[in-house]
C-alpha cells in the first residue's frame, strides 16, 4: 500500500484543461432544447458503440479516460448499457453486420439522446467506403449530431466533439 501511495504522490496531477466546444463539428442543427442541455451539462453518460472500426478510434477513446484528458473529471462517464446512456459515441464505418445492432442500440437509448460519430470512417466511410459489407458513415444508419474527423481523431478532438454535442451555450440559429 505504501508503494502505491508513494507512486501516486510522485506522479502528481496530470489532468489538462479540457478543450472548448467547436461548432464546426456539428452535423445536425441542435436537436435538443437548451433546457435539456442545461440538465445534461455536468452529468453525462456515454455508451460507446464500435460499429465496424479498425480499433484505431477505440484506442483514442480509451485515452480520453486517461489522467491527461480525465473525462470522468468533467462528470462524463462511459456506461455499460444504452439504457443508461444520454449519448452514443459511434465509430465506423457501419458494417452491414452491425447495422441492426446499431439501430437497436439507438432505439434502446432513452430520449432525449445525442449521437457523436468518431473518426473519418464514422464521418464519411473513410478508406473502407460503402460496399457489399459496409454501410459507410454513421449517419447513413442513425441520426448524428456531431461528427469528429481524424484517423484516428486525437483525444482532444473526441473530447471537443462530446463537449460540442452537450454544449448548452449555443442554440442553432434558425
Amino acid at each position, binding site marked *: 500500500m505504501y508503494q502505491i501511495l508513494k507512486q501516486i504522490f510522485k506522479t502528481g496531477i496530470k489532468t489538462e484543461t479540457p478543450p472548448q466546444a467547436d461548432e464546426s463539428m456539428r452535423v445536425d442543427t441542435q436537436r435538443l432544447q437548451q433546457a435539456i442541455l442545461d440538465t445534461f451539462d455536468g452529468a453525462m453518460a456515454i455508451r460507446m458503440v*464500435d460499429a465496424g472500426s479498425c480499433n*484505431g478510434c477505440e*484506442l483514442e477513446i480509451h485515452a480520453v479516460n486517461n*489522467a491527461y484528458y480525465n473525462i470522468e473529471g468533467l462528470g462524463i462517464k462511459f456506461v*455499460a448499457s444504452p439504457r443508461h446512456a444520454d449519448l452514443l459515441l459511434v465509430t465506423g464505418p457501419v*458494417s452491414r453486420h452491425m447495422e441492426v445492432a*446499431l439501430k437497436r442500440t439507438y432505439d434502446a437509448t432513452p430520449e432525449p439522446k445525442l449521437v457523436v460519430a468518431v473518426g473519418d470512417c464514422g464521418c464519411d466511410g473513410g478508406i473502407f467506403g460503402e*460496399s*457489399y459489407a459496409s454501410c459507410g458513415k454513421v449517419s447513413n444508419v442513425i441520426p448524428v449530431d456531431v461528427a469528429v474527423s481524424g484517423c484516428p481523431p486525437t483525444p482532444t478532438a473526441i473530447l471537443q466533439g462530446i463537449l460540442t454535442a452537450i454544449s448548452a451555450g449555443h442554440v442553432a440559429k434558425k
Partner: protein
Amino acid sequence: MPIKHPRLKLTRLTDALQVWAGEIASDDLYEICQQVRDSGGRLVALWGSDARQENMGFKLHVVLINEIGVVCLNVQLSAEQPVYPDVSRIFPAANRMQRAAYDLLGIYAQEGQDHRKWLRHGAWSSGSFPLRKDFDAAASLAQEPEDYPFLQVKGQGVHEIPVGPVHAGIIEPGHFRFSVIGERVLRLEEHLGYVHKGIEKRFESMTVQQGAKLAGRVSGDSTVAYAWAYAMAAESIAKVTPPEHALWMRALLLERERVANHLGDLGYLGNDVALSFGFAQFWILKEQMLRNNASLFGHRYLMDKIVPGGVTASLDVEGKHIINQECDMLEKQVRILRGIYEEHAGMQDRFITTGIVEPKLAAQLGLCGLAGRASAQAWDSRVQFACAPYDKLDVQMATYRNGDVAARAIVRFGELFESLRLQRDILVNLIHEDEAPSLIEKLPPNGFGIGMVEGWRGEVMVGIHTDAEGNLTRVHPHDPSWQNWPLLEHAVVDDIVPDFPLINKSFNLSYSGQDL
C-alpha cells in the same frame, strides 16, 4: 528447404525472408500438411483466390511454418467444383479459415466436420461470394441477420448467457455465448464477423500505395506490423530491397508499437481486477509515449509511416535523445509498477490459475504469438526467422509455461523491457535520412509475395497477388487472432463468468483483424 516431397518443387520468394512457395495437387495437400505437423510445424494462414479469368479455376493458398522456414502451398482447384481436402483435421486452427474461405469465395473443404458459415451473417446471400471476380462490390444486398447455429449445452441447471455484439465497454463487437452452471463456465462459443467490412475486396480496386494505407487499418492497434508485412510482400514481388536506414526505422516503429500496446494492456489488466491505480499509471506512461510519437513522427499510432519501398519517417539526433530518455523513464517506472503488481495479493489472486491454456493444448491447437509464448510455445519470428534488421539485434524471447493470466502479464513485462533494450540498440544503428523514399508505384505482373512480421500480438502475415497488368488482384492480411480466438474458448472453461473480461483482456485479440 523446410519440407521435401517428391511432387513439390519449392522456389524461394525473397532473400529478405525465409519463405518458399510451390504448386501442388489437391490430392497431395493432406499428406504434406501431415508431414509439416509431424515435424512440429504449424499453420499460419489459409485463403483462396479466383483465377478463373486466367482459366486456372480457383486457387487455395496454405501457409505453413516450421523451424526451418515458411512455405506457401498453392493448390489449383477446378472452376466447377472447387473442393480440397479438409486440413482442420491436422491443424484445428484451419476450421474458421476454411469456413471463411467458403463464405467469401465459395471454395469448400471436403469431409470437413463443420460447415457453418463464419464471416457471412446475412449481408450477402448464401450462394453469392464477394471475392469472386464477377461479384459486384458496390452491390447492397443487406438482409436481416441470419440465425447462427450455436452448439447447445443441455442438462439440469445449465443456462445460457448471450453477450454482444455490442459489449459493455470500449471494445470491438463480437458475440459470446456462455453456457454456465451457477457462476461456472461450462462452455463458451464465439461468433465473430460483425466488423467484416470488405477489406479484401477493397484492396482489389487500389494501387499498391493506397493498399499500404488500407493494410495499416486492418487492425488499428497493429498498424505498423501490417504496414510492414504489406510492404515486405510488395517489395518481394518488385524485387526491391529497402534502404538500410528504412529497415532500422521500421524496427524502431514496430518496437514502439509493441511497448505502447503492452503498456495499455498492463494498465487494463489492473483495471479489470479493480486496481484502477494500475490503469491510471500505465496509461500516463502510454500517453507520454504517444505524444512523443506525435511530435517525432507526426502520428500517435505511427500510421502510414511504412510504405512499399521505404519509410516516410526520419529521426535526427535530438529525436534519438528524446527516445533514449523515454526508454530510461519507462524502464524505471515500469520496474516500480511491476514490483507493485507482483506484491499485490488481491491482483495475484485473480491472475494466478485464471484462464489457463496448458502448453500441450496450446501446441495441439496452434496458439501463437504473445499468448503462445505464455503457454511455452517458443515461437517469435524476430528470433527464428530474423529478417533485417532483427538479424543484427539478437532478440531475447520472453516465454513462460503456466499459461494463465499471470503468465501472459509476465510475458508482456518481459517483452516490454526487451523492446526498450532493442530500441536503444536500434538508435545506435539508425542513420538520419531526410531524402524522400523511392516508393514502389507499380508492381510487376503475375507476382506473388508474402510478408511476415512479429507484431505485438503475434505473427502478422500479408499475401499479395498481382494480375497480368501488375494490379492488386488479391491481398490477404492474416491476423494471429485467427489462431488464438479458439483457445480463448478453452481458457475460460471452469472459470467463473466475472473472470471472463480479465481473461479476454489478457489475450486482447483483434476482432477487426479476423473479421476483415
